[in-house]
């Protein structure tokens, strides 16, 4: 089906992050990202990813390796990996979901979106605003009116916290994160 003249299996791609770090990855693993797959089919082996930081890219490459067809992982192992993968703050996860969506990795996008949804579903309006840094453009009267339409949706125990219990608090905007476990490998370097 591929119109590319070269077989992807033995190809090594060079992915370049926003921080100008280079990562060598087998094409057969990287093409789980449809974005990368399209570039490979157009003949590229150097893939610049100017809007994805090294930190995020490293972890995504981990995911791709684990979820590759020939990784030999059982469903249980994959589930365990996924559960560990998403152990990060919602703010951090937003960076990943942005990257996963840009790279068109459906399984990862779905995993991240579902995790974010599960984390925010019981949160209060204020908490969600703070997490995603959304500006409230309602006037107090407007907001009261919208709320009154479905008052019942605001009832019950709503979680007002911005960060979850086990996560590290982001000191700044999440650029430095002390809690990341060091990765075993960073590409094929």
């Amino acid at each position, binding site marked *: 089906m591929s119109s590319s003249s070269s077989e992807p299996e033995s190809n090594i791609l060079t992915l370049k992050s926003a921080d100008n770090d280079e990562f060598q990855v087998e094409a057969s693993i990287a093409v789980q990202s449809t974005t990368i797959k399209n570039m490979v089919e157009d003949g590229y082996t150097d893939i610049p990813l100017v809007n994805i930081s090294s930190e995020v890219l490293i972890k995504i490459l981990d995911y791709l390796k684990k979820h590759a067809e020939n990784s030999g992982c059982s469903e249980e192992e994959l589930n365990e990996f996924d559960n560990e993968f998403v152990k990060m703050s919602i703010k951090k996860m937003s*960076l990943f979901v942005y990257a996963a*969506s840009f790279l068109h990795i459906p399984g990862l996008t*779905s995993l991240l*979106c579902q995790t974010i949804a599960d984390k925010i*579903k019981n949160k209060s309006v204020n908490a969600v605003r703070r997490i995603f840094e959304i500006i409230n*453009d*309602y006037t107090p009267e407007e907001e009261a009116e919208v709320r009154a339409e479905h008052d019942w*949706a605001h009832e019950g125990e709503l979680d007002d916290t911005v960060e979850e219990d086990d996560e590290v608090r982001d000191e700044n*905007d999440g650029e430095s994160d002390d809690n990341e476990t060091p990765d075993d490998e960073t590409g094929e370097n």
Partner: protein
Amino acid sequence: MAHEILKKLPEDVIIYILLRLPIKSLIRFTCISKTWYILIRSSTFINLHLNNSKTAKEEFIIFKRSLQVDPFQHKTTLSFLFGDDLKPVLSDLDVPYLESTFVNDYDQFIGPCHGLVALISMMNTVLFNPATRNYRLLPRFPSDAPQGFRCSIDGVGFGFDSIANDYKVVRISEVYNDPPYRDPYSSEQKVEVYDMITDFWRELDNIDQDMPRIYWAPSSMVFYKSACYWLAIGPKDKMIILYFDMGTEIFNSINLPHTCNSYNGPHYGLVVLRDSITMLRYPNPNPEYDPAQDLMQIWMMKEYGVYDSWMKIYTVRPLLIESPLLIWKDCVMLCESREGSLISYDLKLDKIQEFNLQGCPTSMRAICYKESMIQIPCESKDSAQVQYF
């Protein structure tokens, strides 16, 4: 840089996340900002949410029953239930417009269609979206049969016309030309359709007077694949399925398996199971009849419209029930017991469970639905508006 990324979270990513939220959260989050309100309330998002098969959607039960308030006053109560134990998700609702002197055992509970259900009595139709807790009283049926005539309502249906993008209610009634004797040979069938878009009832012309007569039973009407289906009595007193295509507004019929279609004796019900039209035949609940003589049979039409694909999928041991209400979770049948309480029967495990939910006998109905954000339309200012509970 992270800061900027958060602010630029693309709309399609936000939508991916929103699609995975329960309705209560979605509605609450319309208060976050005007952008979120517009996004969540947009018909694009609502339709995406409705048709989203990728995320597993929970099933809920609405359960209707009549309760006696005093000797000449009955109310209609809806309960909203969830899970194998049928736990309430919110408090019961006493439905306005549906109080009456006598038990409302003729009322029909119809749906779901896109997460909407309709409760139809002799006089009134109320449309509900239980997930968003909206409801609306629809305009009354047009003034009933002219002076001197009498009319009885045989069948009602509610569904969606995907061609006109319109929700419709259909009512089939019998107008007697010769009151007060109700000479059965001097009557005529009338079909009326209510369009949500125009908020009006209109009568259909050219009704075939030889059309099978609707068979009335508590759970004998379903909306399925853009048509309303009823059990009916066809030629030679054989049970048949009559259906009305919401788009073309044409009636048609489907034969029931010939070994299981005799009108006299057993009772019948119609449900949708595993996305197929399914017929239930069960013993007459009258205590004079011995239920062991006539076991309940459940037949499924595995391939739509193909007579030979009718297959008996279950034969059920004697259960003392008044009527089946629905089948959900693939094999759990909810029924009204003869004492007027709700019970469930697991068709695979052969297990009965009783619930502490009682009502006036023969008044129970139940519907299984998935939540949707569909707004109940209300085009006209003169009509009853959408209310909340």
